[in-house]
């Protein structure tokens, strides 16, 4: 039972969509769990009387040598960072980090964060003028510095904004991995790639580990608007460190737990056991927003007409005393029946998101096959992607696909690979492959 006495913790509602009917001996239970947070996001990150959520944001700007080619790239990055700083509301803690093969504090310095007001915003923008390109790229060092700065401030919402234009060439992949492991759960981070030299999997890996978004900024001129919206989004967060808690009965096995909207994010491997039948999956911070999760559990079958609770899905917020506050919960049920019409029906929500997850997967597989020169496989996978995007009404993804393949017949998934595809179009499709649409009403 939610107990939502705190002034600005959003109200969480949990809706479960499933077909609970299983045939005799059936084991696998699928459900889409829609979590909607409302009522938060109204203070815009301002400190609330009585101690509400306070936000801290660190902007990490790539200042490697490649950022000067073309020179507009560095200029756009400076301008975008300035816009992000202008978007900061009074009272929000912030810092700017210049990233090369090492991380350097640009503002305010001294291992601290500044508190936004008219004076600090002006000083920060002044400091940005000193940003120039030169040096390599070691993103792990940037993240470690952001973590130190954020943990020095007394804030409850901790967020990073990271901009890069190149590969993480000046540290080993395991160094970045170790930095991500350190930072996961300490702050959330959005990652943006500018230009065409950065590695898609590196960028999406950072955003995924730190529960933020990844995207391409194809046109550097669009960077400022993107930074402004990322900053607004960060300041709209009202509660951090929310976990999705899954209980399932003795003898059950969790097949997977995926976020499926707004993007596909497989959380299965990120479970933390909190009891013999219970595990937590991180969801990061929440403002006014709605996300969908696909939960699949395999239970021990019971007799016909019996009913079982296959999973209890709750959103929990850890408390300083070690307990958790339950923000909302939903029940996933299983009922065994010999009514074939009931047990063979597939929940429209489950079917839809199974399709969206497959869409993301076949895009990635298709692009990999294309890069590897396996054109038959690429055509088949991307054809399937066109079919899925069309059938589910995922128009944004359909448009991106149409820049990589010529669509002969979307309904049957008949496509031809385009002979010339721009690097930008290809990496845009790859970066955004996990974006989903919700079930059409």
């Amino acid at each position, binding site marked *: *039972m*939610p107990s*939502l006495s705190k002034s600005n913790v959003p109200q969480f*509602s949990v809706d479960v969509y499933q077909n*609970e*009917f299983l045939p005799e001996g059936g084991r696998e239970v699928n459900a889409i769990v829609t979590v909607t947070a409302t009522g938060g996001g109204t203070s815009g990150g301002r400190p609330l009387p009585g101690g509400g959520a306070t936000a801290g944001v660190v902007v990490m700007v790539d200042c490697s040598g490649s950022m000067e080619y073309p020179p507009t790239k560095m200029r756009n990055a400076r301008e975008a960072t300035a816009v992000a700083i202008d978007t900061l509301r009074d009272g929000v803690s912030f810092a700017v980090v210049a990233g090369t093969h090492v991380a350097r504090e640009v503002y305010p310095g001294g291992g601290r964060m500044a508190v936004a007001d008219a004076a600090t915003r002006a000083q920060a923008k002044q400091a940005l003028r000193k940003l120039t390109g030169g040096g390599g790229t070691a993103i792990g060092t940037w993240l470690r510095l952001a973590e130190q700065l954020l943990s020095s401030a007394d804030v409850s919402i901790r967020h990073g904004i990271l901009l890069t234009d190149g590969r993480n060439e000046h540290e080993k992949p395991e160094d970045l991995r170790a930095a991500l492991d350190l930072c996961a759960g300490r702050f959330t981070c959005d990652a943006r790639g500018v230009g065409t030299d950065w590695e898609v999997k590196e960028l999406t890996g950072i955003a995924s580990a730190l529960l933020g978004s990844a995207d391409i900024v194809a046109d550097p001129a669009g960077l400022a608007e993107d930074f402004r919206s990322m900053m607004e989004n960060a300041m709209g967060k009202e509660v951090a460190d929310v976990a999705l808690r899954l209980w*399932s*009965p*003795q*003898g*059950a096995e969790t097949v997977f737990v995926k976020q499926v909207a707004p993007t596909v994010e497989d959380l299965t491997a990120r479970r933390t056991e909190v009891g013999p*039948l219970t595990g937590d999956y991180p969801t990061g911070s929440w403002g006014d927003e709605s996300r969908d999760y696909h939960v699949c559990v395999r*239970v*021990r079958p*019971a*007799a*016909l*007409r*019996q*009913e*079982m*609770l*296959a999973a*209890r899905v709750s959103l929990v917020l850890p408390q300083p005393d070690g307990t958790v506050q339950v923000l909302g919960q939903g*029940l996933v*049920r*299983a*009922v065994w*029946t010999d*009514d074939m019409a*009931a047990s063979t029906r597939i929940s429209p929500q489950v079917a839809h998101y199974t399709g969206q997850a497959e869409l993301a997967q076949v895009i990635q597989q298709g692009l990999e096959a294309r890069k590897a020169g396996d054109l038959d496989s690429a055509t088949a996978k991307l054809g399937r992607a066109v079919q899925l995007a069309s059938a589910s009404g995922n128009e944004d993804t359909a448009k991106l696909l149409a820049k990589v393949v010529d669509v002969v017949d979307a309904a049957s998934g008949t496509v031809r690979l385009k002979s010339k595809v721009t690097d930008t179009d290809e990496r845009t499709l790859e970066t955004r492959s996990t974006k989903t649409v919700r079930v059409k009403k």
Partner: protein
Amino acid sequence: MPPLPESAQSAPPQAAPAAAPTQARTADPATGTAARPAAAEAGAAGAEGATGAAGAAGGRLTACPGCGEPHDPEDRFCGACGTDLAAPPPAAPPPPAPAQPAPGPVAPAPAEAADPADTGSFHLAPPRPGGDETLPLGFSARLSDPGEGEEGADDRAGEAGGSEEAESQTAELRGGRGQVCVACGLGGVDADGYCEHCGHAQPRQRDHQEKELEGVAAVSDRGLRHHRNEDAFALAAASLPDGSAAVAAVVCDGVSTAHRPDDASAAAAAAGSESLLAALEGGAAADEAMRGALMAAFEAVTALAEEARPRTAVPRHNAPACTYVSAVATGPVFTVGWIGDSRAYWVPDDRALPAARLTEDDSWAARMVAAGLMAEAEAYADERAHAITGWLGADAVEVDPHVAAFQPDGPGVIVVCTDGLWNYAESPAEMAEAVPADARTRPLAAARALLGVALDGGGHDNVTVAVLPFPATVARAGTTPA
């Protein structure tokens, strides 16, 4: 005073515009209206006991997998904990009932009965006798789902040989706190009624309920597709001021798209039967008492809407709402009252005589047919067919109780039921075929058999049916009804 339905040929109570407000009942479309044989259900065989579980006296006992209570192999449900006794072996059909001498001369079907399937062997009741002699006599009304404790005693009243262990475990189950799972015996039970260890749903009191008073019986079941039972019933008997008996049944179906449908039906059944019997006992005429009962039920459901909603209540939900149908036998007459699409049927003992449907649904399909806008087949095939246009609840636009009185020429039973049953035996002929021949003398067995018909048909909805023998078979005044 609303018109009395004489037969299917007469005008329905209301011919309302199609734009009338409706409440969607359930996602399940209406299914099968084909005639079904009156299946010899497991429960139909061993139903001599006064209450739910059959006497556990024979040598064929097996133990309930849920609570260990012994039960007859033919029982569909455990009488102690309500556990579904899965896949009972097919039972022998019940022995043929001894021929019942008709208590009075059986009149031939009225000549104006053009369609024998739709017109019963009864006449409308004569004007009620005047004169209100007030003779306060014994009154007993028993509700379908009274408070805990009392219920437990009732449920086990007919059982023999329940071990102390089983008793105490059952008591724990009913106690709320400190429950232990009936499936694994290890886990506690969470607030939602599931085992915290193995996840099995614990038997809910309302999943399957049976009740029998002298002269009337009822069964209510969750069905095969819904996760809880939102139907409710009440049985009641009283002595009238003139010393004769009145026996009543009330059946209500919670509107599942509304808030707290199970509470709505329970409140309506309890308030309605209480009001009905109190009014009759006080000397009110049956039709007035029936109308008053419907209004009392309406007020009870409306009051639920005014109770503080939990903060978690989904705001889009409608106020609690339910249907209501009731029949009361008083002397040579019985009176039916209803709102919504729960129904009453008349099934005469003499199956050569036609059975009849006694109620007109407050439903979208019935209104379309009544208004002449659609053919019956077309209307009932529409997905809106089962949307109801009349109900009890705070959101009701107007409450227009329908009341009709009947005077059959011979003995028979009144079947009072929710759509969870009549979806599988829609026409009077189908319902008559489903009602066992000995229904009047063994009403509980008949109610169980009718439940079996609904479950065999798919059990798509909650199923509730009361079987009310006519004339009332209650002992005369002076003795307290059961």
